[in-house]
């Protein structure tokens, strides 16, 4: 397995995540897209850490730790995101982002 394999997978996941974020009309779907993006990033970190550090220090696992932090971040983010979604839902009765447009100029 080469680095490029992982990078390609990661890139596909990332693009799909972006696609979800851009096109879904449901906040929770958007959240899922974001989770995809985060996963692709974590995958990137771990892959780079693994392959690029081999000539220098094969035992380096810094990328993994960053990925752990990424997961932590994702967890926190998911919690807050859902809380916000709940609040919005109470306020607007909808979680469709295009209906939540009080900032419209």
């Amino acid at each position, binding site marked *: *397995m*080469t*680095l*490029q*394999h*992982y*990078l390609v*997978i990661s*890139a*596909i*996941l*990332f*693009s*799909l*995540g*972006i696609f*979800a974020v*851009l*096109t*879904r*009309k*449901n906040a*929770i*779907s958007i*959240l*899922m*897209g974001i*989770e*995809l993006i985060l*996963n692709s990033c*974590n*995958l990137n970190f*771990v892959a780079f850490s*693994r*392959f*690029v550090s*081999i000539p220098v220090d*094969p*035992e380096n*696992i810094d990328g*993994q*730790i960053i*990925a*752990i932090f990424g*997961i*932590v*971040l*994702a*967890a*926190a983010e*998911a*919690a*807050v995101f*859902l*809380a916000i*979604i*709940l*609040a919005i*839902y*109470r306020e607007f009765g909808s979680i469709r982002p295009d209906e939540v447009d009080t900032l419209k100029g």
Partner: protein
Amino acid sequence: MEELSLKTFIFYGFALITIASAFAVVSVRNIVHAAFALMVTLFGVAGLYVFLQADFLAATQVIVYVGGILVLILFGVMMTSGRLEMRIHIQRGQLLLGGGISLALLMLLLTVIANTPKWENLTDDGLTLKPTTERIGKLILEDKFLLPFEVASVLLLVALIGAALISRKEIRD
């Protein structure tokens, strides 16, 4: 074309599962189905972690994502819609534009990956890492990542409290 060993085969399998389920996440109309597809994706990524010899991370991925976040998402779906099956409505123009942009982005990333010589032919063949759990524990708790770790824990705390506060019913008081 390289040799199709078992390991390679399994790797491609995981990759395929991951990508296919991710595609399902963004494409199925039922949000609950999407959530379950996401679960598959997350499993796939965990599998890929195993291939990268990140055992602890793979476990974490399964526990936190599948056990935590995904459940959270499902709760969110239930609490907002009142029913588990919820149709996802997509406009055509938006779909096309979003697809275009995503595709462009993908093409871009792929060209970058293909055209960066430094990243070519980097393999980890024949190298096995020692189990990482212990080292991760040490790195986090007594080495250079102590401070980020503490910050992350505070972040989690804050997120916890914040989420509880925001989602409270009587917010104005």
